[in-house]
């Protein structure tokens, strides 16, 4: 019993080290994060204050991830890219929210203008 526990404790760092060494470059994660970041930019996240910070965080973490990959820290890069993607997706959502809000305001304005026009033209019962 003691022996088996001991072997786990001894084995764990070995296993850890093996993982670190063999962790492949996170190419797919990089592609996913960059795609999300591009979407945010193309939607205009740079022009939406609520989305700017998220976009910036995504971009910084992508840059950090590239450095980490260069430094051979693939696992660290992998984590950074997961975070970057989450930030980019949040930037996309915030941009869409602002677009929806503006659309809603325009719809209300259109509706009011239409109602005024209808009254003005006597086109109401």
């Amino acid at each position, binding site marked *: 019993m003691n022996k088996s526990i001991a072997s786990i404790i001894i084995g764990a760092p070995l296993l850890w080290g093996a993982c670190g060494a063999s962790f492949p470059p996170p190419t797919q994660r990089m592609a996913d994060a960059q795609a999300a970041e591009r979407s945010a930019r193309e939607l205009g996240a740079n022009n939406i204050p609520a989305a700017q910070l998220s976009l910036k965080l995504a971009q910084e973490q992508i840059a950090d991830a590239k450095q980490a990959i260069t430094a051979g820290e693939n696992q660290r890069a992998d984590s950074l890219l997961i975070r970057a993607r989450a930030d980019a997706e949040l930037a996309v959502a915030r941009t869409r929210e602002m677009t929806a809000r503006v659309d809603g305001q325009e719809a209300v304005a259109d509706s009011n203008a239409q109602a005024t026009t209808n009254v003005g033209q006597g086109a*109401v019962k």
Partner: protein
Amino acid sequence: MNRLYGTSLLVALTGSIGCATTLPPQDLVMARGAYDRASKGPAPVHDPANLHAAKEQLDVAEASFVENGDTQDTRDQAYLAIRKAELSEVVARTRQSNQAKDVVVSDMHADQKEAVAHTSAELGRTKAQVTTQGAALATQGAALQDEKARREDAEKRASKAAADLAAFATVKQEPRGMVITLSGSVLFASAKWDLLPAAQVKLNEVADALIKEDPLSKMVVEGHTDSQGSVPYNQDLSQKRAQVVRDYLVTRGIASDRITAQGFGPSRSIADNKSPEGRANNRRVEIVVQPGTGR
């Protein structure tokens, strides 16, 4: 040897317990707050899927903290939990906005549809009115055209009558009044004093004009001859002729007390009796209208 392993196991466990009792990383505290806020907002109704994913991510972070303590992995998982909670909030608000907008737009379309229906009904009524009015206008136009044709016809006849009248009567303003001079040869045959049929037609027009234009003034019908023949004969002839014309005008409606007759024979010639033309001009009947005399 066994003891040594035992001690290191103890140390490892102690370390593990020590981790569990350390304060949670700031990201994890924020993740709990973010999830708490999201679960109390519109997300449970409008974006339950992302809210659920946020909960699962928070659980991963919590488990990581329990198992490993404040590690980079725990902070990464907590960081993701914050983003997912925020994402569910943002998506839920977006859907709320879109739904509100859809309601506004569909209300607007409904109102618009109603307004269009109302307007097109009004337009239909207006069109019907316009059609009715157009028909009425066409009728009026036709009536006007008829009226115009009638008036033109009447004017044509009137101007012809005036021309005819002018051919046998001249009108002059003189100090003694308006003098209508009628040619004797048109009225009477030579040495006769009964009116020629053509003269009657002309005198009808003169009578109509006198009644219409000047129904009150007094007038005198004067008979004149040329100088051929004896004065008494001509005097008598001129008197008879004036009287015939006067009587005829009375039969045409001129009040008898307005009109008198007088013969002047050759005494008031207006042209030279030596030429045939002069004598023709002297043979005449004059109607002298004295304006204001009847008022």
